[in-house]
């Protein structure tokens, strides 16, 4: 196990290198000097900001030297100061990141909690009522622009019915609430964003779970288990389910970038003060140090989560550790 983890850790070095190259490439994306181009195109960037940009990225130096300096600073988590309010970028991100991480974790939890039972039920009776409904729902959810769905739901529950708050994560009177009320208030605010951001994932995961479970049920060891006279319950949950659920961990890891990317949209729609919204604001303001820092941090976090998924997979399934 330790060996496996070490090997995986070694595997992330080229990945990190790639991430850094790609992020750095984005800075240098604009043809010619990025600074000169922005100057002509974008009145939002003041002359002073340009000067700072020029200094921050040392645009007068050759590319390899700039890359090396940028890499050193990035490794020390020094992303410079924000153009908009001159605070260190890392500080701004640090105060916004927890909200985003919590929402994404809640979504992940909801996806697993809903998709696994749904998928198993569908697999037990393929082409049954539930299976048909799920297939239709899957098509529906795959095709619907989620931000639009978010808007409609927000309008319906928040404005027409007035059941749920439509923006932010706390009410105005949050400070004066008792601890229990605080939790309820938070949950009420998070209910819609978390639900909407999980819907697509639930549909997709339930499909994977379904096919994985059907495949597992067709294996010889299931017939063997049945022949031994085990109860149906034990056959399903001890033998089929355990094998079927494992690939889901990997698939979940692969779908993480999409979930995280979605944060930008959801946090903007629901006005949630998270890292996604911060990124959106940074893009709108052309706050370059903030943009770059977010890209680097978010991709490293996503990569780490992916790694965790793989390691936990290997931890559950010993067969995997010994393979390549």
């Amino acid at each position, binding site marked *: 196990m330790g060996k496996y983890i070490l090997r995986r850790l070694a595997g992330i070095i*080229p*990945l990190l290198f*790639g*991430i850094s190259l*790609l992020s750095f490439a*984005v*800075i240098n*994306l*604009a043809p010619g000097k*990025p600074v000169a181009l*922005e100057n002509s*195109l974008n009145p939002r960037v003041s002359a002073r900001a340009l000067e700072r940009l020029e200094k921050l990225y040392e645009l007068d130096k050759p590319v390899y030297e700039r890359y090396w300096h940028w890499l050193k600073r990035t490794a020390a988590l020094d992303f410079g100061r924000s153009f908009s309010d001159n605070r260190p970028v890392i500080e701004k991100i640090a105060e916004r990141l927890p909200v985003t991480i919590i929402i994404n974790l809640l979504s992940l939890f909801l996806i697993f909690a809903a998709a696994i039972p749904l998928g198993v039920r569908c697999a037990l009776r393929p082409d049954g009522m539930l299976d048909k409904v799920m297939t239709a729902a899957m*098509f529906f959810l*795959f*095709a*619907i*622009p989620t*931000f*639009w769905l978010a*808007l*409609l739901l927000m*309008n319906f529950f928040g*404005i027409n019915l007035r059941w749920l708050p439509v923006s932010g994560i706390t009410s105005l009177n949050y400070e004066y609430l008792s601890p229990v009320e605080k939790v309820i208030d938070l949950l009420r605010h998070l209910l819609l964003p978390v639900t909407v951001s999980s819907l697509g994932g639930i549909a997709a995961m339930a499909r994977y779970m379904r096919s994985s479970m059907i495949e597992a049920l067709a294996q010889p060891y299931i017939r063997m288990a049945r022949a031994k006279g085990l109860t149906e319950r034990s056959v399903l949950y001890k033998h089929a389910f355990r094998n079927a659920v494992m690939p889901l961990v990997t698939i979940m890891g*692969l779908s993480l*970038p*999409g979930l*995280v*990317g*979605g944060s*930008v*949209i959801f946090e*903007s729609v629901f006005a949630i003060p998270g890292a996604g919204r911060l*990124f*959106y604001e*940074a*893009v*709108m303001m*052309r706050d*370059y140090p903030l*943009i*770059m820092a*977010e*890209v680097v941090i*978010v*991709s490293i976090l*996503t*990569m780490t989560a*992916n790694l965790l998924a793989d390691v936990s997979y290997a931890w559950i399934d010993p067969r995997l550790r010994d393979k390549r």
Partner: protein
Amino acid sequence: MALAALAAPLLSPYQPAQIDAGSILCAPSSAHFLGTDSLGRDVLSRLIYGARISLSVGIIAVGISTLLGVVFGSLSGFYGGSVDAFIMRCVDVMLCFPAFFLILAAVAFLDSSIFNIMIIIGLTSWMGPARLVRAEIMALKEREFVEAARASGAGNLRIIVRHILPNACGPLLVNATLAVAGAILLESGLSFLGLGVQPPVPSWGNMLTEAKATLGVAWWITVFPGGAIFLAIIGFNFIAEGIRKELG
């Protein structure tokens, strides 16, 4: 839908940018089939013109990504070894980036013109087709017909293009059709955030943004563009499903 997009000038009852101060926020009626928006512009006309933008962004972006995918996938699959290892590492890197962040960052540094958006979406989504082509080529390159082509003196390029790729066409087409749907969604998401197609050019995404302000009073401005995206995606999914069935 594609036909409607091509024939936009003929079909649209009004000019998409025409502002009619007299009929602001009209509900759907016989004069304006799908109503008008907050500047008195006809929603149906804007939808039809928007279809042009949204569909062309989707199709061209996927064209770019498929082309890149084919090139990288072929190289990777055919030559194997260190070329393969390098390209697959690149794919891994691209896959662990939340593409949406990357796209937004690129838009911030460049400019959000329709052209740039097509290229950016194309550049960030070639990994799927690349993996697909690679797998296909690895499966095919040892087969007899490739040996035969080599024996008759065909070069590597010719073998890849003439003998192997045609066999990979089917799955690639299915993948591309699905990807168009994805790209349309992506474009609408970008435009929705105000970072995609810029108003006054109508795209389905930015029509939704404009609708946000009047959500409570004018449901039609929100429902119809959203419905158009929904139908387009469903359409592409069904086409993909159809091709897959056709291929057996």
